[in-house]
C-alpha cells in the first residue's frame, strides 16, 4: 500500500506542470530567436536577427510574478542577410560591437495581465547603455517533449528607440525605432 502510494505520487509529480523550475534556453537546437524589424524609409520592413546568444529562465505557472529571465546576446552575430549591411551594423554607426560585444537583458519583475500574457520588465544593456524596457510577453506553450524532457516556450515584443541606446546613424523619420521580437523555448534543467 505504501509502495503503491509512493509510485502514484511519483507518477503524479512527473505529470504535474513544473514548479518554479529552471530552464535553459534551447540555443543548442536553435529553438530560440532574437529578431528585429525596422522600417526601411517607411516603405517596407527590414528583418534581421542575432544568431548567437544564450540565456536561462525560471518559470512557475502558479507564481508567475517570481519568474526570471536573463539573456546575453553576442552583438557581432547580427545578421540581416547582407554582408555589407551587417558590417555597417557592427560598426560605430550602429552597434559598435568592437567596444560593446555583448548585449544583456536581465528581468526585474513580471506583471501578469491575463492567462498567458504578461509584461516582462527588465534592464536591457545595448551599445553600452542600460535602460529599463518592458517586453509584452506571451506563454506560447509548455509540456513534455518526445525525448524525455520538458519544455516551455515564450514570445515577446518590445520597441526600442535607436537614439536611447546611442545608435547614431540617422535612417530617416520612419526608422527611429526598431521592434525586437524574442521567441524562446526553454528546456527544464
Amino acid at each position, binding site marked *: 500500500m505504501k509502495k503503491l502510494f509512493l509510485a502514484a505520487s511519483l507518477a503524479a509529480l512527473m505529470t504535474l506542470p513544473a514548479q518554479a523550475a529552471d530552464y535553459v534556453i534551447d540555443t543548442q537546437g536553435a529553438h530560440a530567436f532574437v529578431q528585429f524589424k525596422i522600417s526601411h524609409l517607411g516603405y517596407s520592413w527590414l528583418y534581421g536577427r542575432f544568431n548567437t546568444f544564450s540565456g536561462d529562465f525560471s518559470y512557475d505557472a502558479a507564481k508567475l510574478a517570481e519568474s526570471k529571465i536573463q539573456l546575453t546576446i553576442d552583438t557581432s552575430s547580427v545578421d540581416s542577410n547582407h*554582408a*555589407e549591411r*551587417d*558590417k555597417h551594423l557592427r560598426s560605430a554607426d550602429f552597434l559598435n560591437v568592437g567596444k560593446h560585444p555583448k548585449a544583456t537583458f536581465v528581468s526585474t519583475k513580471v506583471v501578469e495581465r491575463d492567462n498567458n500574457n504578461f509584461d516582462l520588465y527588465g534592464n536591457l544593456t545595448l551599445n553600452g547603455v542600460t535602460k529599463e524596457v518592458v517586453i509584452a510577453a506571451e506563454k506560447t506553450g509548455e509540456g513534455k517533449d518526445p525525448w524525455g524532457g520538458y519544455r516551455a516556450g515564450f514570445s515577446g515584443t518590445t520597441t526600442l528607440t535607436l537614439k536611447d541606446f546611442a545608435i547614431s*546613424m*540617422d*535612417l530617416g523619420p520612419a526608422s527611429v525605432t526598431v521592434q525586437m521580437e524574442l521567441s524562446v523555448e526553454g528546456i527544464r534543467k
Partner: protein
Amino acid sequence: MWKNDVSRYGLISIVLHWITALAVLGLFAVGFWMVDLTYYSQWYRTAPYWHKSIGILLAITICLRLAWRYFSPPPNAVTTHKRWEKQISSVVQGLLYIGMVTLFISGYLISTEDGRPISVFGWFDVPAAGALFDNQADTAGLVHEYVAYSLIALTLLHGAAALKHHFVDKDNTLRRMFGRKP
C-alpha cells in the same frame, strides 16, 4: 612609340601609369568621403557603386599593366640616379603594386561575403566566391582601410620623389613619364 625602349617610356606604359594615378587618387578620395555619407544622401548608393566599379576596372588595368611590363620592360634608370635612389624607388614601386593588389582583393572580399556579385556599372558582374573565412567582411574592411592609407602615403612619397628629381636634381625622371626624350 608604343613600346618602352632602354631610355624611353612608350605610350602604352605612360597611359597606363597616368590612368592608374588618376584612379588611385580618385578611389581614395571617394572611399574616404563615402563612408561618412548620411543615409538620405544622393550619393549613398551611387558612390560605393562607382567605387566598386572603378576598383574592378583598375584591377583589370593593373593586370594588363603587369603583363605589359613583362613584354615591354621599363627603361633603364636615369644615369644620374644614385644607387640608394634606385633601390628605394624600386622598393616603393613594388609596394605600390602590392598595395593595389591587396586593395583589390580586400575590397572584393568585403562585398562578396554573402555571395552577391559585384556589378561594374551594370556592364558585367564579377561573381562572388562567398565566405572564405570567418569575420570576412570586417577583417577585409580593416585591411582595406589601413592599406589604403599606406598606399596613399607611398603615392605621395612616389610623387614627391618625382618632383624632387624635376625641381631639385633637374633631371629627366618626371619628364620621361610624359614621353619626353631623356
